[in-house]
């Protein structure tokens, strides 16, 4: 049963587990001031895992392994690589966090949730899927409330826990109904059993709605977004960055596989619901981002609107749609991690998180300001950064399937986006500190930040200029959903 292909299909997960155990074993022996090195170990380890997986763990023909629990294909593989990349970057950003950076548990929890996300990307059975989602979520509840002495952080952890549990229970109920009507938990078998022939449209709508509640929470679309701003604001900043990128992308991974593979017969129903959610999410996210004064809350609302943009690709329900979603996730992960990384680097020195506090940053640290320019312009969808091509592909997929109205909503929203993203850059580049003594207040970067941020900037620019390889991988991922 345990053939080489089985091994290859879960190679990254085995290695992540091993890395977690390694940290668990070594961390107690390190002295207080050495524990920060767990971050180097995590990031370095994940980098090695990334390389090893790319060399030895690439999928060939799509196959089911482990008794149909895991689907070994390019979609899962490419997303797993993205998650591991995000995990490594997060570990680096976590290292110099004042309270969380010297605690081995933080890295262990990060790896545990990464394990869960990887499994979310490949799970092809409802049971496995649910387990994966919980494995990814529970460590994140703890990480959000990691700063025990900080009221906001505990609030964030608790709030996330409550919302998350309710959403996942609702989804579990949906799973049980799916099983009840189809008699199978295998995603690839459900498609034949759960058809419009033997399930009434109303029931199909109900079941899909239950599933969408759970996934909508994971990807934080309106109206399941209420947790996001508070949690992002309260959680340690690198964790918030991780939540808004990898965790969201994992939700999209599940969404693609679940809806495209298991419910193609009900595509009209779920596409309608998702189109509505996408439109509302983009609009509400962007409008609520306008009055924000805290940069983390601004990024939270912007991430809600980005979930809406990406969902246009899901709604399109064709190869280009799926490709564009995966591509969007790749661009978005790099961009938003960069944005949160900068916020982390800045608040570590200054302890401030208001947008107005960024005044004069371009004189305090020109490099950091330039990176912020890249991150925010990419979020706004300007070339040569990743956000531009990602948006164009998503819109192209929407136009192709005839969702012109949704694309128009998306375009109107990206105009609102340009306004508030540029507004932040205005503080960075135009305004000065009250005393105009920026030279006295430098914002130095420690080595982990320099490495993480430079890699992320390069990622954002590469995705936005040399997009062919990234598109090719996304395309290979989308291909398996339709063949």
């Amino acid at each position, binding site marked *: 049963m345990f053939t080489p292909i089985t091994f290859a299909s879960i190679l990254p997960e085995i290695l992540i587990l091993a890395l977690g155990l390694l940290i668990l074993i070594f961390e107690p022996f390190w002295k207080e001031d050495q524990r920060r090195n767990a971050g180097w170990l995590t990031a370095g380890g994940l980098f090695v895992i990334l390389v090893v997986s790319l060399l030895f763990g690439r999928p060939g023909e799509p196959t089911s392994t482990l008794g149909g629990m895991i689907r070994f294909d390019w979609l899962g593989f490419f997303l797993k690589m993205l998650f591991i990349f995000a995990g490594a970057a997060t570990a680096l950003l976590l290292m110099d966090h004042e309270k969380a950076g010297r605690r081995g548990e933080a890295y262990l929890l990060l790896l545990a949730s990464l394990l869960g996300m990887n499994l979310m990307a490949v799970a092809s059975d409802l049971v496995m899927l649910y387990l994966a989602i919980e494995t990814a979520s529970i460590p994140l509840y703890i990480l959000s409330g990691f700063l025990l002495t900080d009221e906001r952080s505990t609030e964030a952890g608790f709030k996330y826990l409550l919302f998350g549990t309710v959403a996942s229970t609702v989804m579990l109920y949906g799973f049980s109904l799916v099983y009840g009507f189809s008699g199978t938990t295998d995603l690839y078998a459900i498609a034949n059993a759960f058809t419009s022939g033997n399930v009434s449209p109303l029931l199909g709508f109900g079941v899909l709605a239950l599933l969408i509640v759970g996934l909508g929470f994971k990807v934080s679309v309106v109206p399941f977004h209420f947790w996001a701003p508070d949690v992002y604001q309260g959680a340690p900043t690198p964790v918030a960055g991780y939540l808004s990128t990898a965790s969201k992308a994992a939700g999209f991974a599940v969404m693609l596989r679940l809806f495209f593979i298991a419910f193609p017969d009900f595509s009209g129903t779920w596409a309608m619901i998702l189109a509505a959610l996408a439109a509302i999410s983009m609009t509400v996210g962007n409008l609520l981002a306008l009055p924000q004064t805290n940069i983390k809350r601004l990024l939270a609302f912007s991430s809600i609107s980005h979930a809406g943009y990406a969902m246009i690709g899901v709604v399109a329900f064709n190869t280009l749609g799926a490709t564009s979603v995966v591509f969007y996730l790749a661009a978005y992960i790099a961009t938003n991690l960069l944005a949160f990384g900068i916020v982390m680097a800045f608040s570590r020195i200054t302890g401030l998180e208001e947008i107005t506090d960024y005044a004069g940053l371009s004189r305090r640290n020109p490099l950091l300001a*330039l990176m912020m320019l890249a991150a925010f312009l990419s979020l706004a969808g*300007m*070339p040569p950064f990743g956000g531009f091509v990602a948006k164009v592909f998503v*819109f*192209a997929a929407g136009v192709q399937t005839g969702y012109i109205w949704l694309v128009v909503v998306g375009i109107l929203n990206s*105009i609102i986006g340009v*306004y508030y993203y540029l507004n932040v850059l*205005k503080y960075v*580049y135009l305004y000065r500190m009250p005393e105009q003594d920026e030279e006295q207040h430098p914002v130095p970067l420690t080595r982990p930040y320099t490495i993480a941020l430079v890699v992320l900037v390069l990622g954002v620019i590469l995705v936005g200029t040399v997009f062919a390889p990234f*598109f090719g991988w996304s395309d290979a991922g989308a291909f398996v959903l339709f063949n």
Partner: protein
Amino acid sequence: MNFPILSVITFLPFVAGVIILMMPATRKNETRAVALAAATIDLLLSAWVYLQYLLGDMTGYQFLEQYNWLPQLGITLFFGVDGMSAPLVLLTGIVMFTGVLISWGNDDPQVMSGIQDRPREFFAFLFLLAGGVFGVFVSLDLFMLFFFYEIAVFPMYLLIAIWGWVKTREYAAMKLTLYLFIGSVVALVGALAMYWVQYQNTGVLSFNMLEMEKAGFSTAFQNIWFLPVFLGFAVLGGIWPFHNWSPDGHVAAPTAVSMFHAGVLMKLGAFAALRVGVMLLPEGAKEWAWLIMLFAGVAVVYGAYIAFVQTDLKYMIGFSSVSHMGLVMLGISTLNETGLTGAGVQMFSHGVMTALFFAVTGMIYDRAHTRMIPELGGMAKIMPFAAIGFIIGGLVSMGMPGFSGFVAEFPIFMGVWREQWLVAVISSISIVITAAYIMMNIRKVFFSPLPENLEGHVGDVTVLDKVAIVTLCLFMIAIGLFPSVMVPMVSTGVENIMRLLGGA
């Protein structure tokens, strides 16, 4: 494989921008030197392209380069110039070169000129802008055209907001960015629609514009999408009634950015509207030509009239740009050979002329610290060189024979006359108004007595400024005296458009 000259022209500014960004902030003069070197190389290369095209057989697209970029969606890096775009590439080279000269900046607190605050970032953003502009002019791939178009838009925000005129820069920069962004995304939806309809018609996924010309879009489709696409781009061309961002942007921008903005960016809009709107959707163009002509006609007269009543020198030039760009649009809207040729030459002529106007205005403002026309006077004695430059620019603006303005405007009016003589009559009023305000302002600013408060502390322009003025004047006079260096070339580009319009 020939030397990939167009790629080099396009990507050199990006590379130079990155190099400049990596230099230490304290090395201001080295930064400027690198910028000037890059700009000089780009000017020489674009002049080389122009001359090669002029001395060659002048047909079709030349210097073609094509690299696969994203084969799955048919996106290629496809560069080439024709008679329409070669002059504009040269124009961009000229404006880039003179823009760097004007922004050189001396660190002498007595004569504040050019850019002293963070020149490193300034030149980097300016070059990003220049690279985007080159990219649009040489791209024959619709996706890449959009890509470069957007790159050309956002540095404007930073350039204006950071180095602009303190009073209005935030407002003007945001207004400009939002106008242009809205225009471009509206055009983008149209482009995506064209892309998919082409796919339905031919079964080929391609953004290649030469292929798209043959896609056989139905007349109904063209009639629907022509207006969004054309107007979306024409916003950047300053078409009335979407011109409002433009004068505000001019006024708020620092000198070199005003030069780029009026000299090159507005051509970008007109050029993209022509290449994507008219050339890919010719039937739609015929359907809606009357509306474009109406808008353009209003812009020509209204712009000139508003310019006439301005008291701020920069607003005056800003509105005169709206008027002159209206002439370009008017030429395009005729859809006949004469009018389009005029529009092509006018794009170049106006680009050089406005760049010169803004350069001289910047020189005056840097030294006199005011741009209000009533407060100025006697500049001819202090800066005779700048005065001569301004006068030559003024003569071009009025359309005097012997200068490039005449070569451009005369065919436009001839073309319009052939389509709709009434519009030609009404819009030619603008020539009179233009002549009036140009001459009045030259008299006031340069030849009236020097106001007392300016006496003593206003100095002459620098050597670099003089080089810039001479360069710009040279091109305007050359084209005026020898129209054959440009007009035949533009008309080969126009033949191509006429072929698509079905010889109408």
